[in-house]
């Protein structure tokens, strides 16, 4: 058998002998494989180097989900009212109507049973042609009563449900949070001029689209420390006795609150970095107020606005009139005129009492100012004017989904916590000592070891949908269906913080695209290489015959040609890699500063040394491609060689 050195010597003569053809093959095949190398380098640079670099330093790199429990929905299987439930609901409905009737009589109020029944109807037909399929009406008192009873029963097993879910989804940690929503109050933010934007009779002066950065504190998400830690300012000076609600707003909301105009999408990387640093510097001192008006105060304000618009003739008939709330003062409307007699007052008071008792409306007007202090900054919310790169990056980076985070442990220490809680109370709850009385919107933060487990947990949402029929007709993957059969989920989970699971899906999609494109290019390159090598081999038939005559074994000849194929493939791989690296470098030089600026903003970084790169060299992956090219080289050599080696050498030797 000939040595490797000798087969190398002979293989090199093949390369020299068909120089032009070999060079052309290397060039064309290299271009094909360069596309593959390039895709892998950029893919790795983007997903494996840059994104984790930013995620680790800034946004919580924890794999978390935020989940709500299916308490109420689970009561109605497939979202529908069962026959048994209908019987109960009918009973509660009737009881409620009777109670209303009785109370109206007591208070001397007129009562329209038909109207009251319609108003409190606990269910309605899903579709006109399916009158037997009933859906519950969430706001109906009978439904609320049924749900409340059910939740009270389920309270006992809540901890067990959490344990079960933790076990099923392999969560490593669970923490509680709360979703506060101002349900009975309207909230008005004080602007830069110290004015609240209460409704007025003036026609809107604003022209064009409103600024989408305006924050809303109607909703607050109370989050545990592990969920907010990544966003908290390092040296914030918030104190519990300040009576300021600690809050974390998204970076664009903070930008707005600081009175900074929106940066253009075309702003240079330098401008963007400067703006980010500016916001970070100023945001620590950001304090703002909001005025909470209850429904009574809002109604009085509306009445005052109507009154102001009336003609003096009409105004004469109005017995009770209010002045609209001044825009610089968070207070209830002041009475301007009151000509009511004792009977009028009694009837109005009784009516308000009735509404309070049965519909949870308050009796007295209320206006309360709450002050907030920004203690941390969240990644930006969705910006409808953003470009494709920004939206993709933001989608991968994750955001707070428009939520405002309130650090839960800090909030619990707040001196005026109960007053603040009251602003977010459900209408029927009056005495608030326990936060759980505020609302039943508990949320749970589950932490996982890997993004894959997050994805698994999110996949289970489909089970919930399947079980409760929230989305009928949704196609469910087989393996999830199997999992769903074993387990009835009690939670509906969403990504929290980093979009670990989404990132995984996007990465997988990109990987598949690269794989398919790569396979196509590799196939083309294989055909080209096979063509050339095949030609070289068939051109060398006589030479092969001579080698045989000299005493070369078949294997020696195979070895020589395979070495030739390997060298050709090796050179192709090297050129392709070099070319890909070159193009990736050019691209990186061109786009990395812009991407860094975008990522700085989207990840809301504090460390400005972080750089986005489009170059990621995954040795394993690149090695696999090189190996694939070498295998292609071997296959491209092997196939024509097999044909050639089987030929009778004497036929090839004679010039016949």
């Amino acid at each position, binding site marked *: *058998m*000939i*040595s490797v050195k*000798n087969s190398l*010597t*002979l293989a*090199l*003569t093949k390369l*020299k*002998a068909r120089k032009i053809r070999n060079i052309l093959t290397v060039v064309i095949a290299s271009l094909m494989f360069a596309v593959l190398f390039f895709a892998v380098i950029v893919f790795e640079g983007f997903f494996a180097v840059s994104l984790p670099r930013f995620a680790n330093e800034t946004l919580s790199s924890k794999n978390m989900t935020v989940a709500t429990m299916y308490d109420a929905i689970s009561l109605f299987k497939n979202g529908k009212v069962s026959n048994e439930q209908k019987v109960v609901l009918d009973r509660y409905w009737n009881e409620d109507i009777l109670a209303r009737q009785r109370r109206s009589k007591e208070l001397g109020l007129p009562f329209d049973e038909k109207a009251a029944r319609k108003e409190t109807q606990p269910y309605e037909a899903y579709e006109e042609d399916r009158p037997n399929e009933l859906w519950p009406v969430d706001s109906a008192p009978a439904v609320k009563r049924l749900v409340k009873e059910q939740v009270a029963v389920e309270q006992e097993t809540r901890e067990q449900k959490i344990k079960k879910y933790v076990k099923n989804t392999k969560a490593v940690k669970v923490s509680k949070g709360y979703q506060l929503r101002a349900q009975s109050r309207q909230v008005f933010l004080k602007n830069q001029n110290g004015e609240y934007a209460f409704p007025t009779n003036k026609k809107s002066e604003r022209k064009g689209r409103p600024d989408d950065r305006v924050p809303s504190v109607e909703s607050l998400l109370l989050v545990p420390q592990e969920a907010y830690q990544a966003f908290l300012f390092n040296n914030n000076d918030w104190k519990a006795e300040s009576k300021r609600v600690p809050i974390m707003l998204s970076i664009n909301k903070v930008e707005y609150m600081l009175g900074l105009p929106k940066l253009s999408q075309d702003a240079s990387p330098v401008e963007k970095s400067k703006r980010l640093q500016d916001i970070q510097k100023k945001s620590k001192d950001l304090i703002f107020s909001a005025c909470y008006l209850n429904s009574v105060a809002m109604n009085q304000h509306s009445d005052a606005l109507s009154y102001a618009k009336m003609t003096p003739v009409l105004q004469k008939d109005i017995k009770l009139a209010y002045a609209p709330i001044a825009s610089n003062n968070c207070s209830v409307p002041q009475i301007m005129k009151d000509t009511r007699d004792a009977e009028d007052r009694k009837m109005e008071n009784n009516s308000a009492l009735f509404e309070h008792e049965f519909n949870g409306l308050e009796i007295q007007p209320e206006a309360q100012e709450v002050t907030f202090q920004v203690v941390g900054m969240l990644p930006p919310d969705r910006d409808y004017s953003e470009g494709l790169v920004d939206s993709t990056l933001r989608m991968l980076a994750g955001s707070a989904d428009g939520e405002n985070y309130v650090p839960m442990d800090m909030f619990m220490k707040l001196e005026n916590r109960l007053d603040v809680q009251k602003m977010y109370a459900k209408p029927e709850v009056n005495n608030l000592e326990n936060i759980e009385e505020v609302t039943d919107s508990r949320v749970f933060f589950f932490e996982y070891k890997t993004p894959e487990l997050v994805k698994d947990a999110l996949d289970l949402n489909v089970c919930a949908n399947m079980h409760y029929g929230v989305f009928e007709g949704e196609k469910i993957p087989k393996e999830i269906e199997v999992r769903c059969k074993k387990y009835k989920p009690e939670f509906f989970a969403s990504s929290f913080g980093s979009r670990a699971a989404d990132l995984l899906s996007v990465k997988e999609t990109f990987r598949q695209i690269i794989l398919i494109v790569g396979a196509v290019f590799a196939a083309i390159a294989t055909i080209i290489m096979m063509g050339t090598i095949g030609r070289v081999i068939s051109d060398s038939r*006589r*030479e092969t015959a*001579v*080698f*045989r*005559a*000299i*005493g*070369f*074994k*078949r294997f*020696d000849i195979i070895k020589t040609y395979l070495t030739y194929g390997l060298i050709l493939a090796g050179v192709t791989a090297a050129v392709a890699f070099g070319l890909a690296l070159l193009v990736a470098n050019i691209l990186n030089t061109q786009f990395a500063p812009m991407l860094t600026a975008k990522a700085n903003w989207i990840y809301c970084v504090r460390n400005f040394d972080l750089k986005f790169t489009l170059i990621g060299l995954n040795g394993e992956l690149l090695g696999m491609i090189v190996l694939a090219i070498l295998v292609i080289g071997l296959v491209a050599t092997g196939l024509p060689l097999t044909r050639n080696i089987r030929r*009778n*050498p*004497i036929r090839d*030797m*004679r*010039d016949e």
Partner: protein
Amino acid sequence: MEDRKELLGKVWRLYKNNELLFERDLKAIRSMEEMLARPKYKPEAGVKPVMEVKELCKKYKNGKNAVEAVKKVSFEVYPKEIVAITGTSGSGKSTLLHMLGGLDKPTSGEILVDGVNIAKLSDRKLSIFRNQKIGFVFQFFYLQPFLTLAQNVAVPAMINKMKTRARKERSEELAEAVGLSERLGHLPKELSGGQMQRAAIARALFNQPKILIADEPTGNLDSKNSAMILDLFQKVREQFGTTIIIVTHDDDIANLADRKLTMHDGELL
């Protein structure tokens, strides 16, 4: 003497037709004349043949028809003999040569080389046999275009993994024998046809084969170079004691051999 007359007749015809006749051609003719004048080598009585061919047959299938290329051919070749196998195109001489060199297997019959029937050897053993016992020379030389003459000559050494130094020495020795000492570092494209064939002969002799098999070795050469190659064969036989079997359709070349075997329709005449 008849051969000589034929040769001179040929030269006269060429001269008459005004086709050539330069000094070098005359030299070649003179050297051929000299070669023809030399006494033919005759092996001593009792010497064992280096190759015995017994009842050798080769049948091909050409579509539906079976073609008998070689029909019961038997002969012996003795050490140091130069044997020419001649015949018209299609007479079966090349088929016979390939079987003798172990490149093709006979349908029946025996080829005994040193008492071993090479017709029965496996492909692997045949490769070894070819490498060690046989040297091949072809009409088109088949030198590796991007290997130097020294490297080309030493190609057979690649198989038996000869040490570099020994390989170098052997290459130099053979280059000297074929008169190409000055050209060891040259590439084939820098050599003339005759030089290339001499290099090919050196390559064939590298592993000191017992038998040198030449398939139309002068088919691609002019008369001067042909004469030189034939002269070289004589020299090789004398210097290395090699037995040489030449296949040629050129009677002038065949006549220079010690013995001429003529084939016709697959049979020896």
